[in-house]
């Protein structure tokens, strides 16, 4: 048995060229075969790669999809993010617990099934949702659970289950992303231009990154092209993890060719021979169809050597899977992860365009950005810039979920007001709209006249509608909890600060807070924002800070004490000791 495992490890390591940079793939492959990564497996892997055990453990212990404990043959990940809970995920969760006779985080006694919670898996428009051995299950109801569990137990093909279905849910296609395009059209235009003029065309379109930061794409490509290195790399960021975002999923389902087209154009522009698509682990079910599209494109000469007959232009694409970590969407963490390490962001400078993948100049672009780039090549920068608002050209994909009639993906010109959007999706009575996910901001009705654009309210794509009946502070609490769970832990203000924010918020919500706790929330929020190393920590206090600002009454209503109240619960602290000593203070007449 031990020998079997050792030879499996050796074969797997061999398959990835004994390359330490491919540790993510190696660990994924071993995890898929063995169900978990024991300390023994970790040791063998280190040995086979000629590195230290502590390095392998460092990496695998980081990702939520890797288990170091034995798990069941079937692993259920039920999403319990904010939107899911609005749609009844708690009841579905209880149904699973009842049916399996275990709690979340546990495995059935016969080692058959393990039950986990997980953050947003990109199916918020079809909530409640779950991944069962990677297969997506949507629109779950408690009454579905017995049938699902029975099917698992009887070894049926889970793909045949009626709930194992993902609708791309494109409610409103636009002209940039969800419009037809002939394969290779953008590439053929590009190779008849110099790389500089390709960049110039993108510049004419005034394209800005769709992944969140809104950096001008032409400028990024230009920096990367000009940076010196042994090789240049193009990375497509398909890690889409911001809760409530699923627009890249829709692209990868509906028009993967457009993304690969954009990657190839970008590769030509920056002088890269290799492109990597970093696909979040939660989207593994999309992998087979993506690989088929890549194979087709290789066959058509749209990838490989001398693409479209262009002498000397060679470009290939490989898909790098992730393993469950929101922070890996941050570009430098993504690069670390793609190099087979823990997804800890890097300090900048140097920026990825200077020192990126394996230390070489790298352009990291969002899925949607690359689609826009391909379309610009096909239809021209001027055409692109004629759509949208002053500083935000083109269209934007919005993934709308939560309390609305028509959740799904909408492609709309930049500049649309929140009011118009919520009318369109059937949510005119919204109490609040969370734009940009937890890291974005929470808008109150007084702000609904504002517009979705880089110059006003930017978003990577997430729009979560919070209906009139919801407890908004509970949503804020769950958003804050999300950051606690996803903090990479590298730096103090985020690792420790998010936990303290959560505790202080909970104290206020439980009615134990005083006015000084509200002041502390704001002060601490500012510290976490200012001092954190990367965008995760820098935005982790946003749910609290933007609601203190937009909904002060909600907080005021929970304040019961003017004076300072201790966070430390004396009574509770004594309980442990009393129990151990077998004492009952109340009976003894001692009052604390």
């Amino acid at each position, binding site marked *: 048995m031990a020998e079997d495992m050792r030879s499996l490890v050796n074969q797997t390591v061999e398959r990835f060229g004994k390359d330490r940079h491919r540790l993510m793939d190696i660990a994924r492959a071993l995890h898929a075969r063995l169900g978990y990564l024991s300390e023994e497996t970790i040791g063998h892997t280190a040995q086979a790669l000629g590195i230290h055990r502590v390095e392998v453990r460092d990496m695998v212990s980081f990702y939520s999809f890797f288990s170091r404990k034995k798990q069941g043959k079937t692993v259920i990940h039920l999403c319990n993010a904010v939107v899911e809970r609005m749609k009844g995920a708690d009841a579905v969760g209880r149904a699973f617990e009842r049916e399996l006779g275990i709690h979340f985080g546990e495995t059935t006694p016969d080692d058959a099934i393990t039950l986990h919670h997980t953050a947003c898996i990109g199916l918020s428009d079809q909530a409640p949702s779950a991944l069962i051995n990677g297969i997506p299950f949507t629109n779950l109801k408690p009454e579905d659970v017995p049938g699902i569990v029975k099917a698992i137990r009887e070894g049926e093909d889970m793909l045949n289950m009626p709930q194992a279905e993902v609708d791309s849910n494109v409610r409103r296609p636009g002209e940039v992303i969800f419009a037809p395009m002939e394969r290779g059209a953008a590439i053929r235009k590009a190779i008849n231009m110099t790389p500089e003029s390709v960049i110039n065309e993108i510049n004419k379109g005034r394209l800005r990154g769709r992944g969140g930061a809104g950096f001008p794409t032409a400028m990024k490509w230009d920096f990367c092209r000009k940076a010196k290195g042994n090789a240049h790399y193009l990375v497509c960021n398909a890690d889409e993890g911001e809760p409530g975002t699923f627009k890249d999923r829709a692209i990868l389902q509906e028009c993967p060719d457009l993304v690969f087209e954009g990657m190839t154009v970008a590769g030509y522009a920056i002088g890269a021979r290799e492109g990597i698509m970093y696909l979040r682990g939660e989207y593994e079910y999309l992998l087979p169809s993506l690989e088929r599209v890549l194979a087709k494109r290789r066959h058509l000469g749209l990838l490989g050597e001398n693409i479209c007959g262009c002498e000397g232009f060679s470009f290939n694409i490989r898909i790098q899977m992730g393993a469950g970590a929101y922070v890996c969407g941050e570009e430098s963490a993504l690069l670390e992860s793609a190099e087979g390490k823990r997804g800890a962001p890097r*300090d900048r400078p140097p920026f990825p365009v200077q020192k990126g993948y394996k230390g070489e100049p790298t352009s990291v672009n969002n899925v949607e950005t690359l689609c826009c780039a391909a379309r610009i090549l096909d239809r021209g920068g001027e055409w692109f810039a004629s759509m949208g608002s002053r500083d935000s050209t083109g269209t934007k994909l919005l993934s709308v979920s939560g309390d609305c009639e028509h959740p799904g993906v909408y492609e709309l010109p930049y500049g649309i007001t929140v009011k118009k959007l919520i009318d369109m999706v059937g949510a005119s009575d919204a109490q609040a709209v969370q734009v940009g996910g937890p890291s974005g901001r929470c808008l109150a009705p007084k702000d609904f006249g504002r517009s979705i654009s880089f110059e006003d309210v930017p978003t990577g794509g997430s729009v979560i509608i919070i209906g009139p009946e919801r407890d908004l502070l509970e949503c804020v609490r769950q958003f804050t909890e999300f950051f606690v769970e996803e903090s*990479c832990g590298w730096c103090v203000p985020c*690792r420790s600060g998010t936990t*303290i924010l959560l505790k202080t918020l909970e104290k206020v919500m439980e009615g134990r807070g005083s006015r000084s706790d509200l002041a502390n929330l704001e002060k601490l929020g500012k510290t976490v924002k200012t*001092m954190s190393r990367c965008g995760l920590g820098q935005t982790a206090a946003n749910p609290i800070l933007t609601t203190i600002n937009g909904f002060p009454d909600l907080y005021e209503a929970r304040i019961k004490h003017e004076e300072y109240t201790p966070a430390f619960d004396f009574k509770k602290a004594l309980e442990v000791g009393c129990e151990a000593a077998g004492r009952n203070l109340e009976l003894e007449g001692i009052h604390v």
Partner: protein
Amino acid sequence: MSKDAVTFTIDGVEVKAKPDQTIMEAADAAGIYIPRLCYHKDLLPGGHCRVCTVRVNGRPANACTFPVNSGIVVENDTEELKALRRDIIEMLFVEGNHYCPSCEASGKCELQAMAYRLELLTPQMPYAWPKRELDATHPDVYLDRDRCILCGRCVRASVQLDGKRVFGFENRGAQKRIAVDSATGMGDTDLSAKDRAASICPTGCLTIKRQGYLTPVGKRPYDKVPIGSDIEKKQAAG
């Protein structure tokens, strides 16, 4: 290129620097102290603690990795930054389990000394009271994780100064902890008490056995002068 190619200011004081220096290195050379915990002059910077955060042209940046540039305006010793840094020190105190009076590192501990320098009185943030594992399996070195601030100095020192790989990290977020390169405990690693990694810890987390409490109270490094005085002395002298 000339040796002093770059000129910029820290709190209005003009500083000359070599173009490949970080703000921290340039400040040290100029006798200006920027508070820090995870930085060590013999190691590449790790960027963990963020105590060294300054404002560069108004924007927050950590001095230990940020490169100097001609004409940048750096703010360091301001009330705002002092308060922000104090918050971080407070976070470190409530995140771990620190009982200074009985700690071997008291008086030479950089965390404790930084708390004094930044005038942190009593932590008011909620304590985490974590349960952390002690590792006493090594014959000559203790690893008392209660006092670990995850500065990563031991991790870097083992690789960069000792040519080994004794330490690493494990897990993420609040569960992140120091791990050792063995399936059992530190005793089964190739750590030697003579390694730089064994004595580079800023707190009382990694300590050498059988030589505790040797320096009497009153004579310990930070009993008389605040942390950072060695760097500031240069300025007074210069």
